[in-house]
């Protein structure tokens, strides 16, 4: 087996999952889901491993990984902040919230804070338009967020980490 520069135990976990699939046709997207769940992101070596395991071209795996916004090749922060950029949130100032979060976390490039605690992303409409603008942290929804609230929300998670 070729050498992969990723955590061995995690790779075995992924392998077990792939082996457990009865039908491998069309399984690439669910496999990528699982891989991202295990590794947190999809580094090159994980994609290579999946390609060989499923018997498809690595180019196809890469093509699919980069096509869908859910998949990422960048490591994520401990807490993932998602700002909804749906129309309802946008007309209620979601862009200003994003700006404030980036300012508060001192993120200039990329989307992860230097300490690896947070990563920031935008997403398309979570469907909670009644609460616009909406920010999600690790799946928890904060509604009617104001620029002044940002620090408080982040502090909640900072405190938890001590």
């Amino acid at each position, binding site marked *: 087996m070729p050498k992969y520069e990723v955590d061995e135990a995690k790779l075995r976990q992924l392998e077990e999952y792939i082996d457990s699939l009865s039908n491998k046709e069309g399984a690439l*997207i669910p496999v990528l*889901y699982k891989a991202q769940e295990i590794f947190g992101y999809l580094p090159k070596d994980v994609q290579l491993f999946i390609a060989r395991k499923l018997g498809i071209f690595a180019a196809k795996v890469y093509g699919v990984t980069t096509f869908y916004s859910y998949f990422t090749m960048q490591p994520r922060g401990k807490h993932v902040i998602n700002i909804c950029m749906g129309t*309802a949130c946008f*007309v209620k100032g979601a862009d200003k919230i994003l700006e404030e979060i980036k300012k508060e976390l001192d993120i200039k490039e990329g989307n992860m804070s230097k300490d690896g605690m947070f990563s920031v992303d935008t997403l398309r*409409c979570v469907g909670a338009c*009644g609460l616009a603008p909406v920010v999600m942290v690790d799946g928890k929804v904060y509604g009617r967020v104001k620029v002044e609230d940002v620090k408080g929300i982040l502090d909640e998670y900072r405190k938890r980490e001590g």
Partner: protein
Amino acid sequence: MINSIEKLKEILVCGGTGCQASESNRVFEVLKEEVKAENLDKQVKVIMTGCFGFCEKGPIVKVMPDNVFYVEVDEASARKIVKEHVLKGRIVEEKIYKDPKTLEKIPEQSSIPFYKKQIRIALRNCGKIDPENINEYIASDGYMALAKVLKEMAPEEVIDIVKRSGLRGRGGGGFPTGLKWEATRKSKGDVKYVICNADEGDPGAFMDRSILEGDPHSVLEGMAIAGYAIGAKQGYIYVRAEYPLAIHRLKIAISQARQRGFLGENILGTDFSFDVDLKIGAGAFICGEETALINSIEGGRGEPTVKPPYPAQVGLWKKPTNINNVETFANIPPIILNGPDWFSSIGTEKSKGTKVFALAGKVNNVGLVEVPMGITLREIIYDLGGGIKGGKKFKAVQTGGPSGGCIPYEYLDTPIDYDNLNALGSMMGSGGMIVMDENDCMVNIAKFYLEFSCDESCGRCTACRIGNKRMLEILNKITEGKGEMEDLETLRELAETIKDSSLCGLGQTSPNPVLSTMKFFYDEYVAHVKDKTCPAGVCTALLKYYIIPEKCVGCTACAKVCPVNVIHGEPRKVHVIDREGCIKCGECFRTCRFGAITRK
């Protein structure tokens, strides 16, 4: 009047995503605790339902059979509902909906203006039943239509009923559902598929999510009927990963339906077999396009392919495939049970039945409404929606998401149907309806949608991939105050080319937001280009900051925060902004505590 406690009571709590985000889960727990503490377990059932639609006033709690509708319920009022309403029969007045115009308190859901003009067919069970309990669906005539179809009708008869009902696809295109079924039925092949398109990607739209969360079985039943009609044994629901609650409830619904024999082998003792599996999307708007969706289920990039052949001929795994959207399927069981004439009696000549809209943006009552086709935009926005937030002036309503357009005040009395909206340069789309007021800049809104289309373009067609980018660059230029009049002509030319030469619906419609705003709000474009101003005061690069001398107390706060030091003045004297060097960052505007800084 309120019934005595001897009778069985149900407390319904909204468990839609919107209400859950405002802690309806906690309200649900508290209600259960209180009921238990008062030893009422036997007489009172606390049920978590799907979306009531009135998201603006969530969390919603409804007490049945008293038919009392509570809004904005929190922990304390939840306790009060049990202690006062349930135990003593006294309505908790402060949590009853109050009409902001008449100040009248309205305890009955159907009398609240938001619900008055609604006819609920697709949403018939949302907010009424527990979506995680198949018995409640069955008790509301659930799976009766499937039984009727299997026992009494030939597949052709089913198709005939759907055709005669006049139902058109609710996902946006508006193609007649019966014709689609017929085409798939007539295609040769022993293996066929039914797909439910639950990849609701329009930003600001949440109709399908609410149906999946609130009444998942109605979709499964609609799919099984479609399966019988076209001759398919397998169905897939392609659902967005962004909807975890919908996925959770679908999984429960599928497993319960299998247990009860509504899915699986030999359904209801007949020789018809049909099963449904979930496919989770991975965040690509284009996958709402049917050929792209098929490619995605097959595990590839979600890129559209050329039509024809249509999925009805060559679909999933190259087999004939029928694809309908969530709301379309949810309409099927009532059509079968009540007949095509009942359905076609609702709506306009060419658009039958109802449509669910997600009303959002600058409107008082944000939420989900299901209205008969032919209702006017004005009725939806002003009667159901309660008018514009904060007494501001209405500017436009956007329908059809990134494929649609902005409709101005003059057309508010247009009866809504597929064809009228198309004629206005917008479209029905899946049902997003975003209201905009005087503070929204239409150029900026067009830019927002175009950014979305650029992001989501799969890159296959040159016109869409590059053309939209060029359009976006021009719009950026305009909002930065660098636009020229000839840019507007270029915009129009590009838009027409992209419409003509793109393969799929995304590309063909992506210029609509720009074209419609140019059509109805051309003067705003001109203001940006010629006068270098943004009438709505949104485009920062075009704003100019002024200090109002009468309000300035000379506290120096603005001068201190100005990063480029262009605010001058002595302490306790009126300050001035030297606009020459101003970078329009807005720090002074945010800092001033006396409202002495304005921007125009």
